[in-house]
């Protein structure tokens, strides 16, 4: 490796860092005579100084873009250093980082170099080198490039674990405004193709056991938060639709970091809306694991989440008449709606209930956050919240809560 490569790596990682989807989870596969495996639970290898987990070598193939999307640091009109990796360089870096246990695998994205097909071909080359030449069994996530030949997308899909297409903005109007060269209709083509590929595979597997895997860890996408004035409601509804229409595994949100000046964009002085991003992630959890719907979380006339309270407790405030719930009687779905009870503590409660009645003191030992939960439950008929059940009373008692703690989404 020449000495230039470190500059290249730093430039291209720098350009890729705003892409937040980093998880390596979703597939469990063991080594079949080469290098590497994947654990379904996902393994983090390092945490950068912003506190985000590093699990994959996340880089662009190139930042030399022919498009000019307003929000993007790599847009063609920006005067920045342009670099391109060769396929061999990316493959070697991946293998050597992987052997040293720095990473779980590769997350390869790219600007549009020359045209979509040229770009997708380069990505394919990297993946082929890794899987065929290096016999690499670790995790690979690549970006599907909208506008690339479906045949190329299919070839890549047969070799990678996850493929994603970032839609970046939640509405057609925002896309037209800020990413005029991207065709919103075309944007969804690869998504649709990946979904159909996965469905086709399920079908094939019923007939031939060894039909080749196609994007086994599924697909994901990312939306930027705060580059346009799209509301949380718009973003969350788009999220819900994406889960339904394309069977996405994850939708990621990325608080917009102003990198460019422009009349259509938030000022470059503005801090990224991290708390808003956090609320959206909480809401996304509620959609995926707590059986909430987007319209329950933000109803008629509500546009954005309350930044002072998390979406779940807010929902409880709106439906205060459904509380308190009796911990020893309600269904698991109802348990999950109690603020302070998460999926793990709900499971523990349901299990222990089969053997003995739950006592109030047990709850915190089971991981329930009593500071919040006590206002919303009874235990063997007794209410322990020292305030009367009223939204105002609870809000004062919680005393506008610790503004935000990234660590626990909610307990």
């Amino acid at each position, binding site marked *: 490796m020449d000495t230039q490569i470190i500059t290249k790596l730093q430039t291209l*990682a720098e350009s890729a860092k705003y892409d937040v989807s980093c998880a390596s989870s979703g597939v469990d596969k*063991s*080594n079949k005579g080469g290098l590497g495996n994947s654990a379904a639970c996902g*393994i983090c290898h390092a945490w*950068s100084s912003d506190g*985000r987990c590093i699990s994959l070598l996340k880089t662009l193939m190139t930042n030399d873009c022919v498009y000019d999307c307003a929000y993007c640091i790599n847009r063609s009109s920006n005067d920045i250093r342009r670099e391109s990796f060769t396929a061999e360089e990316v493959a070697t870096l991946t293998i050597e980082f992987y052997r040293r246990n720095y990473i779980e695998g590769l997350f390869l994205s790219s600007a549009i170099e020359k045209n979509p097909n040229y770009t997708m071909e380069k990505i394919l080359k990297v993946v082929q080198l890794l899987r065929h030449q290096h016999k690499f069994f670790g995790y690979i996530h690549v970006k599907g490039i909208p506008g690339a030949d479906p045949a190329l997308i299919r070839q890549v899909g047969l070799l990678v674990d996850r493929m994603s297409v970032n839609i970046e903005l939640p509405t057609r109007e925002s896309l037209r405004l800020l990413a005029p060269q991207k065709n919103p209709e075309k944007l969804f083509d690869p998504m649709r193709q990946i979904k159909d590929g996965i469905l086709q595979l399920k079908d094939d597997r019923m007939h031939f056991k060894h039909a080749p895997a196609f994007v086994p860890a599924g697909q994901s996408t990312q939306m930027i938060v705060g580059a346009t004035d799209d509301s949380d409601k718009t973003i969350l509804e788009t999220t819900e639709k994406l889960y339904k229409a394309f069977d996405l595994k994850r939708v990621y949100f990325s608080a917009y970091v102003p990198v460019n000046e422009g009349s259509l964009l938030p000022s470059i002085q503005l801090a990224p809306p991290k708390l808003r991003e956090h609320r959206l992630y909480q809401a996304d959890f509620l959609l995926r694991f707590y059986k909430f719907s987007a319209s329950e979380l933000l109803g008629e006339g509500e546009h954005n989440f309350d930044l002072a309270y998390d979406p779940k407790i807010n929902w409880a405030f709106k439906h205060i008449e459904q509380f308190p719930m009796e911990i020893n009687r309600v269904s698991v779905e109802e348990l999950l709606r109690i603020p302070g009870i998460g999926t793990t503590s709900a499971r523990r409660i349901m*299990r222990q209930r089969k*053997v003995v009645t739950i006592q109030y003191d047990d709850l915190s030992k089971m991981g329930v956050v009593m500071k919040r939960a006590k206002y919303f439950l009874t235990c063997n008929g007794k209410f322990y919240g020292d305030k009367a059940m009223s939204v105002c009373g609870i809000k004062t008692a919680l005393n506008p809560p610790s503004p935000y703690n990234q660590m626990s989404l909610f307990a």
Partner: protein
Amino acid sequence: MIYTYDGTFDGLLTCIHQHYYLEHASEIMEEIHYQPTLFEEVKFVETDLIKAKRVYDAIMKQFSEETYWDIYRTYLSNNRMKDTYILRYLIMAFKMGQKIELLHAHHDTLPVRRISRAVGFEKHRFLGLLRFAEIDHVLYAAFEPDHNILILLGEHFADRLANERFVIHDMKRVHAIFCDHWPWIISDFKMEQPITYSDNELAFQALWKGYFEAIAIESRQNLKLQQSFVPLKYRKHLTEFH
């Protein structure tokens, strides 16, 4: 009666056996941790593989594998009370049968559940935090975990690095996993001289450090959060913090 044992898992299981067939134990602890008291009698229990196997079989027969792992992980922890917690857990478990697994908050089950989780958590952490360096075609990783988790790492890395020779070295407990393709072994191990890295190895370390810096978003800097994921005590062996 306090039972002490040699620190092996079989030794601990032998103590459990003695509790039922010889005399009830009030506490169990490793011999090296025992400090004499005036009030309690103490007895060193000689490890007996047949008795240990009986207890092991009884656990496996009556409970799910998860219960066995809870006990085993607790045994690996650095908690000084761990053996007594295991004793109490098993007394309760043999009384209640499989239902014990549904019971989370009871004072005889909670310590084992909590400690087992902490040990499992540290193991999971090190699946990611181990750092290998290539030295004469061998991948070498040193670490100093709180709990004795070395044995829990073998399977994962033997699969992941199937075509490599590697060593994972717990410097605190001076033992290491050695693997030259499958299978792997654990043996006592001490590094005699300081390591010197080849230029090639140093180049990849530099690339990793360069990458590590480039990937952070300055406007989101949050060192406290970073520290909660990577406590200072682990950083000594992490390439990116050197």
